[in-house]
């Protein structure tokens, strides 16, 4: 090889490397990186002003959790034979031991306030540096970008509808407009004994389009309507759509894409977007969705354990739904319940880029009714699936998803009120400025998390205005509701399906609460 040749080889190799690096640099989503890393500043400040004891305590717990997560990854992916060792229960014991140790070492003065404070600080750290990191990483490597490509599987879309006059037609029309091979879609609207013109409205579509059919039955609740609708479903994939939701044109293609890519995926969730963003309460909800979907769910998606396939739009493999006997009557949130059943049957549950638009409750009292059902249903579902908490054979579900969920449902709502009481005391004791400073501080962290979610989703930057409400106001409203719902569930109140009033139904139906669910009247 002559000198000239070797030089030209060297140059071409250098150019090749340069091109790879350049492409890599371009592929990185730098805005997300900047937003993610910018949180180093407030966290750095937080560490800086912590008393040494708190710093050690946070560090020790962080270490404990890092070991737990590392170990969980190892046993689930590599060494299932050790699955029973150091599981969720051992973690709970570990945390209790940890509290004893830090009190003994004098890092923590034992009092409810100090415990809640430490818990809050630790959770903020975990939330950001574990959950947000995985979500950020997930977004960077484009894990959820399952590209839809033919052949497309045959679909049956189930639309359970109870008194959805004025809505169900639009839902069907959006599905008809969706970009999907028409001979692979069948749409089944299920009229759950409506007392209005729902059946007639849907029937008009059935008459006009061969791929639409309508069935009707005695009123029995959403779970019952879905189970009934399944009897008429011929497709390989079952899609469920709420009768008040509008699916995006590309939604059907995107929501089935993961099934083709991964055999073990049993169900796929969608991205829920609120379209009526004309009030404070709906914009707060959109920000809540954006953070919940993009930060929290992406982290769970990484492990294939997305915990709720939303009723607005979700997809299931038909044989999986049949295997778990579809929907059960015993909770108020059949979407969460059925997702748990799919997960327990050993399937992965994933997110997709399918988008669905929904109308969010537009007043505080409507939001109250919606969340009353959701939160009661959440507690009922968690209690129903309690074996996951104790059985390590459920892998990530047992080791990661449930511990997080339990803390979120059973610790945070109560901690919120201890903090509130403490803040009240501080204000009365004349530390108003400190309280304001702390508020601004935590808002800035939530602000950055929200910004990351908005950047990932390409959402509206104006939503950031509502970040402070996610620290004070909106947050306590939901915490209070959670506490109430937990008490309701534990004292076995008469838990009926409570629903929000609809903006677009000019004629309100006779009762706001549908006559449904005899499950809890025993």
């Amino acid at each position: 090889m002559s000198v000239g040749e070797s030089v030209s080889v060297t140059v071409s190799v250098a150019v090749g490397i340069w091109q790879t690096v350049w492409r890599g640099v371009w592929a990185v989503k730098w805005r997300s990186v900047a937003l993610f890393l910018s949180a180093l500043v407030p966290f750095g400040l937080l560490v800086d002003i912590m008393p040494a004891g708190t710093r050690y305590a946070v560090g020790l717990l962080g270490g404990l959790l890092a070991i737990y997560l590392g170990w969980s990854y190892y046993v689930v992916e590599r060494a299932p034979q050790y699955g029973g060792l150091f599981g969720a229960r051992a973690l709970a014991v570990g945390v209790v031991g940890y509290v004893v140790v830090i009190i003994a070492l004098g890092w923590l003065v034992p009092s409810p306030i100090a415990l809640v404070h430490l818990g809050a600080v630790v959770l903020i750290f975990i939330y950001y540096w574990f959950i947000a990191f995985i979500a950020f990483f997930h977004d960077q490597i484009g894990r959820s970008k399952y590209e839809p490509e033919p052949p497309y599987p045959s679909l049956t879309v189930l639309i359970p509808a109870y008194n959805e006059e004025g809505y169900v037609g639009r839902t069907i029309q959006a599905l008809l407009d969706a970009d999907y091979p028409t001979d692979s879609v069948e749409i089944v609207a299920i009229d759950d004994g409506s007392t209005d013109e729902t059946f007639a409205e849907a029937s008009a579509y059935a008459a006009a389009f061969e791929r639409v059919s309508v069935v009707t039955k005695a009123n029995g609740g959403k779970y019952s309507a879905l189970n009934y609708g399944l009897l008429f479903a011929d497709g390989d994939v079952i899609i469920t759509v709420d009768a008040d939701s509008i699916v995006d044109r590309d939604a059907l293609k995107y929501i089935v894409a993961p099934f083709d890519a991964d055999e073990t995926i049993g169900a796929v969730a969608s991205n829920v977007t609120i379209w009526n963003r004309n009030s404070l309460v709906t914009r707060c909800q959109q920000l809540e969705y954006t953070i919940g979907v993009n930060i929290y769910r992406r982290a769970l998606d990484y492990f294939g354990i997305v915990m709720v396939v939303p009723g607005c739009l979700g997809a299931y493999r038909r044989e999986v739904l049949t295997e778990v006997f579809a929907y059960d009557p015993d909770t108020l949130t059949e979407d969460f319940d059925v997702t748990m059943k799919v997960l327990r049957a050993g399937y992965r549950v994933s997110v997709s880029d399918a988008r669905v638009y929904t109308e969010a409750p537009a007043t505080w009292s409507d939001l109250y009714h919606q969340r009353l059902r959701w939160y009661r249903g959440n507690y009922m579902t968690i209690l129903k699936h309690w074996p996951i908490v104790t059985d390590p054979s459920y892998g990530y579900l047992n080791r990661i998803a449930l511990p997080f969920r339990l803390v979120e449902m059973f610790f945070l709502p109560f901690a919120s009120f201890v903090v509130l009481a403490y803040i009240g005391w501080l204000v009365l004791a004349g530390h108003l400025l400190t309280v304001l400073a702390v508020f601004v501080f935590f808002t800035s962290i939530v602000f950055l998390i929200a910004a990351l979610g908005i950047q990932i989703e390409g959402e509206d930057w104006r939503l950031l205005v509502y970040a402070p409400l996610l620290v004070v106001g909106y947050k306590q409203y939901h915490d209070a509701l959670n506490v109430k719902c937990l008490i309701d569930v534990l004292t076995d109140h008469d838990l009926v399906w409570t629903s929000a009033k609809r903006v677009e139904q000019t004629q309100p139906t006779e009762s706001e609460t549908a006559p449904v669910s005899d499950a809890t009247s025993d």
Partner: protein
Amino acid sequence: MTEPHPVPCPHCGSQSFVDERIVEHECGHVASLEAVSDGCEKCGRSAVDEELSPLQTIDRCLDCGHRLAWAEAESTGPLPSVTFPTLPTPEDNLNWVPARFVPESRRARQFFSTALVVMVLVAGIAGAVSVTPMIDGESVGPGEVDTSWEEYDSIVVFRNDDIQPWYNQEELRAVNQVFLDEAVPVTLGIIPDTAGETPLSDDPELCSYLRSLEADAPGQFEMALHGYTHEQETDFYDGSEFGDLSREEQRERLADGEALLADCVESPSSTFIPPMNTYDATTVEALDEANYTTVSGGQWFTDQYYDSPNSTVFEAGGLTHVPETQAFEDWSAYGESDADEEDVPFHDFETLTDSFDDAHAEGDIHVVMLHYQYFTTEERLDQLESLIQHMNDEGDVAFVTVEQLSVGLETGAIEETDDGWRVLEPIAEVTR
């Protein structure tokens, strides 16, 4: 049952249909009545009539099993008119920006979005940065201090004077260890430049030791300035370093000493301890100007100079005066005897306990002065330890530093009550 059906089966074209009764079992399972006749497939229980609710009767194709969904073509009207609301999409996220500000080209729009992200990021960081000093300064972050009022019969302050480089460092550590063991706070009087020859900067080991005390036992050791050279400069009240000196000279000594102490310890206190326990009104003025809150001399001196104030601790010239009420060492015996120059004799134990007992009975403030360098034997160290234990055995005694006492009285965290005192604990945190 098998009469020709008006609509043929959409799957196989057959016209043979059978009526099928669809029921729901208690467990939520939905199936045909026929299918549950042998028991429910889902829950495995028998499905008797009471547990079944009928949902609908439908037509099922006899040939292919397809269930006919809908068979009443005649009952429908025209398609309802459907209007879609405006749906938000990621593409029009800049809609809210007035059109004239949104750049035309794609690249410029990207730049615009990036600028938006940077603004958001800066706002978030600026928010956090700007309030941090407020959180830090007040040091009452959420849950950091859990305070409560505690009742005490009396208050005791220990003041350990003459901390200086090189000299009897082992004794210093031994005395401090007694306070650490007994968990009693103490005010350390530190000489910044002993005899004008040994500045604190000469002994980094002492300084790092003092800083380790601050870090490891926060709030327990108060780092107070004890004069400048500790040399007797005037004959003011039988000897003083500050009293009777000119205003300018007093200021200079104070500033120089302050600078040396600030370089040595982490957080110097706002207490000044004048050598020989004597100071004049000029000293107090200079201290007030330099933002000191407290001066701690001797009660024998303040009783004369301030004409017997009616309480041990009093306010004058803008400062709180916390004079020493009981010396550990017996200075009169030292002057009289020709004994060993090195070893100042201690008061006997009884004198010390009696003095405390009197103050305790009165619910008074008892300020004990000691000099670490004379604790050269185990017996002497034991005497200090026994005194503390005696105080603890006697009743509820609040142990505080000079600064904690002065700031506590000032802010109301320490209050006199009918039968003693109440203190907002932890006083070290509250008065920080």
